[in-house]
């Protein structure tokens, strides 16, 4: 099995297309960092416009921690496409290239083959996220420095102490890894049904966009299905950046406001991953390879 996984990883990282995702993330992040470095003050002043009339806020607000948060909010909507580029190509790409029939006449079971491919695409996803974390967090910390994290949500503000932020990012990236693996699992599942990659990639993105709309629109009838959509839970990483307060409204350092939401979302995502992968294997085992 390890041989299979190694071979799959070898194929992924020998393929030029793989590096598009890494390059795209680099370009996006560098662009945002550049923009904020040059004109971040305007952005912050704009956000603080309302609050600044009552409170005097001092300190390095636009520090690496806040910059990383801003980037994650933007990117974790777009990174799924980059995940789909590889994951949705895993089976359909082989069929398209004509290599599927060669691979499946080798002495491995189809289940082993599918699991190896999924594990390889998960490793790719994780590496992409590590790269994202390196650029978005560590490089931002280096460029913008660090300080407390001043987070302006739509109806309240959270101030996290500097030494209370980093572990939250570890948690957030870990959760994001789970979310992105769910996207990979979906792409992987859809990949089984096609003999070219474009179809599954587009289908994966369409599903994500469609479900995201359902997740975010505040229409009562949609509220029935929202809890079951993986897109509803993919943004659970934000829960790491909300903090509990005492009765005296004093923030409790090291706490999370709704840890149960994180756990719940993690479980939902994990269930989705298992279902997608299991379904992919079941379908694939019965599939006649005509490509």
């Amino acid at each position, binding site marked *: 099995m390890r041989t299979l996984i190694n071979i799959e990883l070898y194929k992924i990282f020998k393929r030029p297309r793989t590096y598009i995702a890494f390059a795209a993330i680099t370009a996006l992040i560098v662009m945002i960092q550049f923009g904020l470095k040059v004109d971040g003050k305007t952005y912050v002043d704009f956000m603080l416009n309302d609050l*600044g009339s009552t409170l005097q806020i001092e300190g390095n607000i636009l520090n690496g921690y806040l910059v990383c948060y801003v980037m994650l909010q933007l990117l974790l909507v777009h990174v799924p496409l980059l995940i789909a580029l590889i994951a949705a190509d895993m089976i359909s790409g082989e069929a398209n290239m004509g290599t599927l029939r060669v691979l499946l006449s080798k002495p491995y079971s189809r289940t082993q083959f599918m699991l190896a491919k999924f594990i390889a695409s998960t490793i790719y996803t994780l590496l992409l996220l590590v790269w994202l974390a390196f650029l978005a967090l560590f490089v931002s910390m280096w460029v913008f420095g660090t300080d407390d994290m001043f987070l302006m949500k739509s109806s309240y503000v959270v101030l996290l*102490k500097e030494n209370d932020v980093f572990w939250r990012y570890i948690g957030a990236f870990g959760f994001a890894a789970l979310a992105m693996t769910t996207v990979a699992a979906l792409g992987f599942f859809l990949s089984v049904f096609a003999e070219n990659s474009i179809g599954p990639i587009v289908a994966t993105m369409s599903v994500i966009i469609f479900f995201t709309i359902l997740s975010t629109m505040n229409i009562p009838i949609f509220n029935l299905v929202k809890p079951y959509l993986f897109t509803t839970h993919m943004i659970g990483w934000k829960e790491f950046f909300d903090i509990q307060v005492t009765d005296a409204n004093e923030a409790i350092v090291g706490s999370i406001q709704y840890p149960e939401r994180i756990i719940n979302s993690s479980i939902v995502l994990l269930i989705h991953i298992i279902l997608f992968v299991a379904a992919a294997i079941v379908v694939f085992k019965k599939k006649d390879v005509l490509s």
Partner: protein
Amino acid sequence: MRTFIILLFTFHFSTFTSSAQDMTPLVMKVKAKLDQVNDYEADGKMKTDVAFIKAPVGKVKIYFKKPNKFRLRKDGGISLLPKGGVSVNMSSIVTTDEFVALAAGEAVVAGTKTKVVKMLPVNENSDVVLTTMYIDEANLLVRKAVTTTKENGTYEIEMTYGKFSNFGLPDKVTFSFNTKNYKLPKGLTLEFDDNEKPLTEEQKLKNKKGRVEIVYTNYIINKGIADTIFK
């Protein structure tokens, strides 16, 4: 805070009508007590209690130097201070030098009997419209002060004293002030989840008031402070 109190007492007092009792002597006594302190450096813990802000307690350092230099600095990190809480003090010094002190009865503040003194600015252009001080006559300490300003609304300062009461330096100071309702569009904050319920009336009212509380842990008094600290 401290600046504010001291500076109010450096004013000249003019004569006034005989219908209101002149509280100038009491005010001068309190000022004299405060005048013992030329400068101090204090450590403190600052807590911001605003309904829509979740903030942890932060360490602060406070510096004061006669007659009117005051600096509050957070020991690292981002600080949230009521706007005008410090600047009002500063602007009071700059624009006003005349107050009339009138008696306004008595009141109990945190279990202590106090004399209520109304401070009216003589100068019509002063930013301060009215200040009401609650003075503990027996100990010559200001327990509470409520100030109404033109620019920054009304705010309240309440003081609790302990082992430094001989110098008129409080153990705890609480600023209460008005805040605006806080709301940012979701498109701006990129929040697409909608887990919130609409605010109740009570919550909305809470949103309108804020407090900053500073607990002083120690004072270093009259050891000299360089002017550069206040820049």
